[in-house]
């Protein structure tokens, strides 16, 4: 049900595509844009893509890393409930961390709940940065 997610494999790109059109403000026509009904002759200037950066006030250090480690241990011994409980605690500490979503998705997958794995990964995609992280989450959605 992901409407377009599958069709466009565009990662959450950190890079900001700066407008490359260097037209001078003086060369522009006067301000009477007559609407035209034909398809655009001139493509609009490339628009910037949003930066996916962590908000400046999110925890800089990974205070939750020990929790993720603990969750992994719990998963390894098959205690998925405990793993998810610990990961939820981690998520409360840092709700913007795609890494925690990824770990949650993995845990749901491990206990055989692929629907919850998928939707958790999908939500995590809202927070991912970097191709490898986004791709890892995307893998649950396909």
């Amino acid at each position, binding site marked *: *049900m*992901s*409407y*377009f*997610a599958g*069709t*466009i494999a565009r990662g*959450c790109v950190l890079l*900001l595509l*700066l*407008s490359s*059109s*260097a*037209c*001078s*403000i003086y*060369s*522009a*026509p006067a301000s009477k*844009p*007559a*609407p*035209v*009904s034909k398809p*655009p002759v*001139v493509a*609009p*200037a490339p*628009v*910037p*893509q*949003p*930066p*996916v950066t962590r*908000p400046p*006030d*999110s*925890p*800089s250090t990974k*205070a*939750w890393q*020990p*929790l993720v480690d603990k969750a992994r241990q719990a998963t390894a011994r098959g205690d998925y409930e*405990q793993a*998810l*409980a610990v990961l*939820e*605690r981690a*998520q*409360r*500490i840092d*709700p*913007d961390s795609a890494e925690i979503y990824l770990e949650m998705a993995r845990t749901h997958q491990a206990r055989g709940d692929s629907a*919850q794995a998928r*939707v*958790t990964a*999908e*939500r995590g*995609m809202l*927070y991912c940065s970097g191709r490898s992280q986004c791709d890892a989450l995307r893998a649950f959605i396909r």
Partner: protein
Amino acid sequence: MFRTSHLLLKLFLTALVAGGLFLIYLDAKITSTFIDKMWEIPAKVYARPLELFAGARVGAEELAYELEVLGYRKVTATRGPGQVARNRDRFEIYTRGFDFPGERESARRVLVELSGGKVSRISAGSKTLDLMRLDPVQIGGIYPSHGEDRVLVKLEDVPQTLRNGLLAVEDHRFYEHMGFSFTGIARAAFSNLRSGQVVAGGSTITQQLVKNYYLTPERTFVRKITEVLMAVLLELHYDKDQILESYINEIYLGQDGPRAVHGFALAARHYFDTPLDQLNLSQQALLIGMIKGPSLYNPVRNPERARERRDVVLAEMSKREVISPEHAKIATAMPLGLNSQRSIRDSFPAYLELVRRQLRLEYRDEDLTTLGLSIFTAFDPLLQRQAERSTTTVMEQLNPKGELESAMVVTRFDSGEVAALVGGRRVRYAGFNRALDARRPAGSLLKPAVYLTALERPRQYTLATPVQDTPVKVSGPGGQEWEPSNFDHKVHGDVLLYSALANSYNLATARLGMDLGLDAVVDMLHRLGIEGYIPEVPALTLGAGEYSPMDITAMYQTIAAGGFRMPLRSIRDIVDANGSPLKRYPLEYERTVSLQAMHLLHFALRAVVREGTGRGVYRYLPADFEVAGKTGTTNDGRDSWFAGFSGDLLAVTWLGRDDNGVTGLTGSTGALKVWAHFMAQASHRSLGYRMPDGIQTQWIDDQSGYLTGKGCPNARMLPFITGSEPRQSTNCSARQTGIKDWFQSLFGREH
């Protein structure tokens, strides 16, 4: 003569049989209920524990408040659990430790250093700590109707001096008698005779226990006999230590509002905020003294009488050689040592009601009041305090007279947890919980569902699609005609879709809703999380129906979370009396709306606060703090709503009158102010801008909705679902411009 004695014999035998049956009945009563009764413990409800780590957003004043409501004692240097020594932004905390579900956080001394409203470092000795949590505040209990609350203690954990002191004062022959004492009864009978009425009991500890457990408080001869019989039976079935332990846990030691304080362990916490095993002699004697008259010798209400009684107890303890005369002398010189901390227990009736309702879906009242469950909730005392402050402050400005009511729900939308709840303007009052039970039309708060329905059809609708804000007339059932008008009674002609929502145009929304089909709008509202009845009538597009603030929160929770629905949770875990996890309420997502359409809706809801009806929020918030939201006003301003979210919190606020009278307020002039006042203080995270896959931005002429060039007249950037961009364009080509609107400035401040 023979006949008389025969009759007497018959009477005697009948009495004997009746007495025997009575004894059997009493015996059955005791053996069947005594052990069970010992374990009747109300459920305890806890707030979320405060998580501390480097970078955590906690101000010094907030940490101090949290520690205060936890009852940490302020000292100059910490020497034991439950103490804090503060030096400006440095908190030396000796934590109490706590058994969390599945994990123990042990008691330890830590140094928490804050700087700029954040934790900068946590250390224990020379070691830096990554993460720790304080014990959670107990915010209430689920008490039975008689209000009894207690904390159980085992006899071996009761200090020896307390135990012996109790026996010295109440029943010094406890370990010798058979449940009652002839001398005690004789002494009582004598004084009763002298005064001509029943004034003294002469009860042993066993008798007192029986009286508290099974009998009514009136003083009659029959009751006294029953008491003695039951005491003897109890002694036959159970050993002395079991009886004493029950007594120590059962004894009534005063009232705290509707809550009855039972047992020494709870009394120690209640009066001294100290665990039983850490009470000093003076405190122990005070509690022992209270047995004689919990109300008369209540140290909070009658400190002088309580002190005198304590000194009597200390003297008796010394006389019976429980303590030395020296110790008695020192204890007599001590102050009462009462708990001076303010308690926040049972002061959040609105939130507790939410917890109770969630519990009642799965537990019987009886289980909740007797099984000694621990309920761990998401309640955040710091957010609650701010929600109450914002409510009180703004309501005082808007309506000093006080007939205007309010409600507020705050969630952390990433997890769907309800963190704070205000059920009415008088926040401490139980009673009508408007957050849960006020059912009102939602006004324009439902409009986002109409626009979302449209945006899920990208071939037909985009943010740049012109919609007609022109008069509309719909015939409803029974030949009724519905003819809405705009708030300003104007007609705005063709407006772009996002702008129609940002400005909350009624005509455009009604038209759009009718074009989409009311069934589609109803379906969208259900998908967003509204569970009750939704009337499928044209006026639905403008908010018809009855919705509680909680219903609206469910809807906006899904919107804030980006199209992921999750149950609104107040409870995280339930743990049984032995500390074993019983139930966890897990985080579960369900995606019910197109991510891309939701992304576009977010844009429009940001436009509401940047250029539409919600602009007033920036009188409270810093200009660069991103939020999204929607105002709502119902007919004649009977209800004033605001729902919106930042990067970490969702809040829904409602103002109105209980009699549904006119308030003269709109969403912007009423509820918005409470919301913005709250967010400005409570939210720590600006709403981030994250484009999901399948979204592109384009420059659009915001008059025509055509593609245009950057820097062209009326040019503004809008997001589109890829492939749905307008096909028509202006003939203006891009040019350099230094002017950026709020949306562009989201795109990196690197420019």
